[in-house]
């Protein structure tokens, strides 16, 4: 029987590529750039961030980043649950894909609010 994994694998692969390109710089920027005094704290301040996210294209970019990161992680963790026998695959599907779906909806809703 044909598998439906291509759907989740495609999200995993797209998220894997996007996070490979973007995750290090984003974590560095948000996590370390201000404490290390590499950028002006105002660069990540409320006024600038809410101003930027009011632009639809920037909000959409943010949405794509969050959603694909989530589905990348969800699919890989589903595989790891299988690899290590954490719990049955059906549980992993509900748990990890459920978290990713909830996070996707939440970020979509919050980003509609910013625009």
């Amino acid at each position: 029987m044909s598998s439906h994994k291509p759907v989740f694998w495609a999200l995993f692969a797209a998220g894997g590529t996007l996070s490979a390109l973007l995750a290090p710089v984003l974590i560095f920027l948000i996590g370390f750039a201000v404490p290390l005094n590499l950028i002006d704290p105002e660069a990540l301040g409320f006024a600038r961030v809410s101003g930027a996210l009011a632009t639809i294209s920037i909000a959409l970019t943010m949405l794509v980043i969050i959603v694909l990161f989530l589905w990348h992680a969800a699919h890989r963790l589903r595989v790891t649950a299988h690899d290590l026998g954490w719990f049955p695959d059906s549980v992993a599907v509900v748990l990890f894909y459920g978290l990713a779906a909830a996070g996707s909806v939440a970020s979509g809703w919050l980003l509609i609010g910013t625009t």
Partner: protein
Amino acid sequence: MSRETIELVVFRYNPETDCEPAYQRYQIPYHHDWLVLDALNYVKDHLDRSLSYRWSCHMAVCGSCGMMINGEPTLTCKAFVRDYADSIRIEPLANFPVERDLIVNQDDFMSKLASVKPYIIDTDDVPLSEGEELQTPAELAVFDQYTGCINCLLCYSACPQYSLSADFIGPAALTLAHRYNIDSRDDGFRQREERVGSDDGVWQCSFVGACSEVCPKGVDPAAAIQQGKITSAAHYFKKHLMPWSDS
């Protein structure tokens, strides 16, 4: 530094007398140009005629002498004793049932290999009298690397997914399915896709990549399977998003 002798620590199991496997130690002379297979043959010829193992060509073509050498899936005819320490542990290929000593049961692989139809399926109605179906060097180059598979099963022995999922078709069989799928003379993609694109096919692979690391012929099963996933996913989306299309 010259070595006089080396020790082989060999996995032994006789289904007629043993409930549990055991390890037997053999001291054998050291020769700089000996393969691990030569060392086993010395044991068989001079020390212990009861030792059972498969081998045939002695030149990495027949694919029958694969074993675990110090835990690594290896062709014993492609591994020199000089590259190991003074004690070499030899076990039957991991992930397969052991028939006796170093001989494993290959039935599971054989049936899975057959299930992906690893041969050219030519459905166009060109009669033989029209002559042979020609192929350009570029069309050959597409799949040439995958024809190197000798079914030695080292990739199955290295693959965690094969050991964790009993129904997984596994690296070599999926690679051969891909090899025929991308052959310009072949029309069998859809017949194979039912197996290849199933949960037991490419989608059970988590890209550990161990298959390609242990392959003695540079076939690179991991590449074939990842490219197979892309082809299979494209087929899936075309079928579901464009149901009117002919796929």
